[in-house]
């Protein structure tokens, strides 16, 4: 099975050629309907995660077993779950773990991959050896097996545990991309000139290397947000992710697996999960197109 993460990593190439600067890229992006559309969906999902009360006044934990598994109706759009809780409220409240995992994984993962990639690319020898060999070992670890073993070690797993594990095993891909871009930037004339003028390494890294090599990693990160959401759901489905009473789409799908006749239990969380992942993927795709000058020819 090919993981979307693999496609994302293979499709994103290191380039260090005149990527359009922030404002110009953003203006161009805003002209693309796909970007605007996915942006709107993401905003709605984020709003659902932050303020679920805006969308539903029902309490997701107020349940009555008498209503167990009743299908959708005008008053209760998504019907009821096994416990007889309002399913619409549950699906709305389920956005939070997905959004938290994706945001924290992409932010922390970006910082880690960026820092280590810049260090490894700019300081060949010991630093590069240490970082790259560590990445080699993590790459060779069978990914999902390592995730399962680490997650089994925690008796109580929260959103943060899952985000931690995804970042811990996922940073090598971003690091390698960043490192290879930095390698091609570090011998440019402006970097050499700065060095001749006596600029310190931290200054060169911050002012010259970082802005000129960050674009590929940025597009890889936006693309992997969606992958992180899917991973959280898959881990939760396997029973080693989030646990009740947390409300999450992954958990809802896992429970629906045992009640195949009540299709609404599966359809609604799956729909929201798919919509979220798809919007993040679409956004990442357009961001990559805008940042990669090779694709714009």
């Amino acid at each position, binding site marked *: *099975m090919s993981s979307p993460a693999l496609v994302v990593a293979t499709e994103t190439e290191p380039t260090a050629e005149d990527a359009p600067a922030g404002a110009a890229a953003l203006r161009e992006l805003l002209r693309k309907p796909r970007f605007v559309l996915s942006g709107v969906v993401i905003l709605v999902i984020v709003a659902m995660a932050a303020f679920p009360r805006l969308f539903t006044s029902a309490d997701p934990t107020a349940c009555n077993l008498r209503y167990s598994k009743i299908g959708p109706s005008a008053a209760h759009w998504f019907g009821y779950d096994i416990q007889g809780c309002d399913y619409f409220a549950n699906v709305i409240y389920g956005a939070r773990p997905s959004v938290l995992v994706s945001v924290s994984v992409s932010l922390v993962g970006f910082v880690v991959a960026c820092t280590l990639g810049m260090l490894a690319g700019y300081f060949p020898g010991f630093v590069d050896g240490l970082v790259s060999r560590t990445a080699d070992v993590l790459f060779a670890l069978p990914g999902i097996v390592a995730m399962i073993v680490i997650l089994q070690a925690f008796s109580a797993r929260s959103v943060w545990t899952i985000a931690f594990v995804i970042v811990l095993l996922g940073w090598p891909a971003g690091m390698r991309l960043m490192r290879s871009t930095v390698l091609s930037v570090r011998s440019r004339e402006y970097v050499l000139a700065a060095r001749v003028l006596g600029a310190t390494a931290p200054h060169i890294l911050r002012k010259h290397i970082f802005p000129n090599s960050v674009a590929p990693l940025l597009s890889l990160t936006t693309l992997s947000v969606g992958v992180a959401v899917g991973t959280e*759901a898959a881990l939760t489905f396997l029973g080693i992710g989030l646990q009740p009473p947390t409300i999450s789409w992954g958990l809802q799908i896992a429970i629906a697996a045992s009640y*195949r006749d009540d299709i609404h239990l599966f359809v609604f969380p799956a729909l929201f999960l798919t919509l979220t992942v798809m919007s993040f993927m679409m956004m990442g795709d357009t961001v990559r197109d805008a940042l990669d000058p090779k694709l714009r020819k």
Partner: protein
Amino acid sequence: MFRYALRRLIIMVPIGIIVTFIVYAMVFALPGDPIQALSGGKPLAPSVIAAKRAYYHLDDPLFSQYLHFMGNLLQGNLGQTFDGQDIGEQLALRWPVTLQLGLTALAIQTVFGLLFGIYAGWRRDGLVDRALLGATLAVLAVPGLVVMFFAQSVFSVQLGWFPVSGSADGWPTSYLLPATVLGVLGFAGLARITRTSLAEVAGADFVRTGRAKGLSPQRILWRHVLRNALLPVITYIGLDLAGTLGGAIITEGIYNLNGIGQFMFRSIGMKEGGVVVTLSTVLLIGYMVVNLIVDLLYGLLDPRVRHV
């Protein structure tokens, strides 16, 4: 090239030792007592516990447990699970399931991925190309978990075209649906990468030269463009192949196929260090060998890549 391959094989040894040790240590550090779990929480006689613990070397320090295990593994002795089953026999029972699933999926994804990818890349911006880009983005964006469930609900439960779960009907009946779903998921990535790579190479100078000197388009595509465009495609297939087993855990879980993936998942829960490390070692060797083959193929396909 032979010396290059040999050097690569030698580098594999330390990485292999480090990775297997990490996996062993992680399983070692898992909470819970596997012997106590055998009796389902009921009290066991201290003498029984002591005998079992001595038999499985559970009271030895981590290092000597690891060395003992690896020594046995190198001699081809995989040991026993805590409930006394021979690990080698258990694996022999389960390999065929995962292999049949994986190879069927691989065949589907490679044939369709290459066909559509090559066509779309060669006729860039054509109808097929646009349709392919849209369709593959959609496939990549729907979480694998959702696709598998949906296919199972619709094609097996509702329509009754395929068995719902299990591998009782043998190949191909039992494997067709899960393998097709896996194949379609893999197809999306492969087709995209083939298409991008081919489109990029099609703009190269040597293609224009070929056209100018009057080569037929077919000859340019199959002899010149394809050969150059296949490099990233081969890397992708290699990595994908190496990751097949990871994906098998979820697929086998949903379709209840009793293969290596399920065995691995259950073994982690039971703290069966032996099984987990044996399977991880197999995965690791597979990953490294595939990587080596990919690198060697590079040299064969592209004479500019020289291995010294």
